[in-house]
């Protein structure tokens, strides 16, 4: 009995001590929050600005931009002298690592942005991102721009804190099967198994399309990496491989058993506008990236290429071309106030190329026709906004 009593006493002492500590902790907490309020006013920016905390976070992360107003990304990029571009290292045609260099369509658009903003197409820091973490990287300021084969959708526009810009590729989802499988159309895949890349818009599209067609929805099996998906497909875990047509062409071109062992169904069953994205809230940076992309389309409309641009510039009398390239001769140079150097388009075309050049270098080898990705006068969707 005596033992039990002393034990109880112990507990009481401990309880009381805990209570004291908790109370003291609460006091300190209260004091801290109070301090915060007091200091935020006079020491940092003028009041009514939630930038105080945001600025702190930026400082912790190494003095990056984290602004509430426009212009901070551009300033930070100019100061750093490098554009951090979120991309990919294993997407044939769009961005693959070859001898330590990022090569591909998306990689070149990163270079376009760097050439436009900094005048140096090589001033790019490529950040390889998985599908799951791409928006987080953009939100957190780890990358300045995302050029990563990303479909523009309402949910992503609204909920991911991203602003999508001029699509640089109009894609559509397609279906690929083994040539010897005997499958000839989507109907044949009803109730079978389709492999897709996880965390993408393709997963939902398959179900939507088969439901629309009134067919048995196939089992959709998503994989985190294209390598795993390819192994599973080779082992016959799935009958179909569904993805954007451009990606399917890329995977087919590098398929171990040879491209002829795979068949891609001709029709696309979804709209996949692949567009670069920047963080919400910085309009100036969004405009800068938008016009950098646009300049490649404008260059193709003018018939400019990296090979002929200097010659054309010297020989042309077209004031539109001269203004576009920032070489007015005796006349006034147009500076539309985008925050870009006046010769940004010249640098883009000279160092990287026109849209057509980039397409032919990276996408044509995959066996993809230009189709929707022709300029408007050729029946495509590419339509440069006038530069004037």
């Amino acid at each position: 009995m005596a033992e039990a009593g002393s034990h109880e006493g112990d507990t009481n002492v401990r309880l009381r001590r805990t209570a004291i500590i908790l109370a003291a902790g609460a006091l300190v907490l209260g004091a801290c929050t109070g301090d915060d309020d007091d200091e935020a006013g006079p020491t940092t920016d003028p009041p009514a600005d939630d930038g105080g905390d945001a600025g702190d976070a930026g400082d912790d992360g190494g003095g990056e931009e984290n602004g509430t107003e426009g212009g901070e990304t551009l300033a930070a990029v100019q100061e750093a002298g490098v554009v951090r571009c979120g991309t990919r290292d294993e997407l044939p045609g769009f961005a693959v690592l070859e001898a330590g260099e990022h090569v591909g369509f998306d990689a070149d658009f990163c270079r376009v942005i760097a050439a436009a903003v900094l005048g140096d197409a090589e001033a790019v820091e490529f950040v390889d991102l998985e599908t799951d973490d791409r928006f987080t990287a953009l939100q957190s300021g780890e990358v300045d721009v995302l050029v990563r084969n990303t479909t523009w959708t309402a949910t992503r526009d609204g909920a991911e804190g991203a602003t999508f810009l001029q699509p640089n590729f109009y894609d559509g989802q397609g279906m690929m099967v083994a040539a010897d499988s005997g499958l000839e159309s989507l109907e044949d895949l009803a109730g079978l198994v389709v492999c897709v890349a996880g965390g993408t818009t393709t997963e939902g599209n398959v179900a939507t399309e088969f439901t629309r067609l009134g067919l048995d929805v196939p089992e959709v099996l998503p994989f985190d990496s294209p390598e795993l998906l390819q192994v599973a497909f080779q082992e016959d875990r799935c009958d179909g491989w569904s993805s954007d047509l451009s990606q399917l062409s890329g995977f087919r071109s590098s398929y171990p058993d040879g491209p002829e062992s795979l068949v891609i169904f001709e029709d696309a069953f979804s709209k996949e506008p692949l567009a670069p994205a920047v963080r919400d809230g910085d309009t100036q940076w969004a405009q800068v990236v938008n016009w950098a992309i646009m300049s490649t389309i404008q260059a193709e409309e003018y018939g400019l290429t990296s090979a002929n641009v200097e010659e054309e510039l010297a020989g042309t009398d077209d004031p539109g071309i001269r203004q576009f390239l920032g070489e007015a001769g005796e006349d006034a140079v147009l500076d539309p106030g985008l925050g870009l150097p006046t010769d940004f388009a010249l640098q883009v075309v000279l160092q990287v190329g026109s849209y057509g050049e980039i397409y032919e270098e990276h996408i044509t080898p995959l066996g993809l026709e230009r189709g929707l990705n022709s300029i408007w006068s050729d029946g495509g969707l590419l339509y440069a906004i006038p530069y004037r």
Partner: protein
Amino acid sequence: MTTARTGRPPLWRDVRVLRVAFQVAVLGIIALVLGTLVGNVQANSERLGIPTGFEYLDNPAQFPIPDSEFRPTQPVRDALVEGLANTLRVVVLGIVMATVLGVLVGIGRLSGNWLVRTAARVYVEILRNIPVFVLIVFAYFALALTAFPAISEAWEPLGLAVFSNRGVVVPWVDGGIAPLVVGGVVATVLAFGLSRWRTAVADRTGAPAHTVRFAVPAVVLVMVAAWLLSGLALSVPDREASSVSGGIRMTPEYFAIFFGLVVYTASHIAEIVRGSIQAVDRGQVEAASALALSGSQRLRYIVLPQSFRIAVPPIGNQYLNLSKNSTLGTAVGYFELARVTSISVGNGAPAVPSYLLLLGIFLVLSLTLSFGVNVVNRRLALVER
């Protein structure tokens, strides 16, 4: 009492004050850091227009979940429930199987038979020294996908089951498992009752208890009765080209994560079991031998009950590890909770609340498991008189 005369030291040197002050300071720093982090998350999310609440749970998920009735138009909430069910499917069955296998191998490690002893030892030494992630990926690509035949050449023993690298389909009762669950509960209760009754009889009269001889037929009888009552319908898998209908299916993805977790965790449990058997006082075994108990009787009545007392807390840890490692299912495309979370984030759900929720659910899961282990532990603990 003699030193009390010297009076109290000044506050800054008073141990009692310092102790409290130090703890308050630590608490304060932690609160400050957490407060700043939470504040930053909120401020940054607000600035970017990213929702910080849990309203996203009502948005359509926009992705399907294989091997389920889930439709992409259902809300994220339902997808998470489906993911949790898949996690539990791996964790609960995995814990049972890992325990059975682990105990067998652990006892085998101490067997007098050279072959059994060595086989158990090789098993433990190989499996506990491979990262579980590698084991799971290996189980998927090397076993589930490659060692099983393609669906076109599926192996169909007696036309009763279908083995292929798209899963193993075996016959299953038609029309819900509710009668079987009820039957299982009744059978378990009955078996417990019978064994208690037999033990009581044995204690009173000294006759052999024969609990197994009574319990097993009872269980079989009840289960057969439940099955008969459920309508006797058996759904046998039927393969037509690439699609299989009927039966119940184990997908290769489930097989990989389940197999990987079970054999890995079992190797650790085996070592715990071996250690705790060896920790039982040698005198106990000798005394049992002196009472002419046979080898299996010694194990069953003397050694194992005492060693379980030692083994329960560390085995509980292994259960926790298994439940947390189930998130590795993501590597082989198994839709457990973590994968559903990451895919829903890829489809527009906000990252911070999504992962907070995942964190919370796993915390609850782990704490529940710990609680269960603690209850068992308390019941087994030596009652000191």
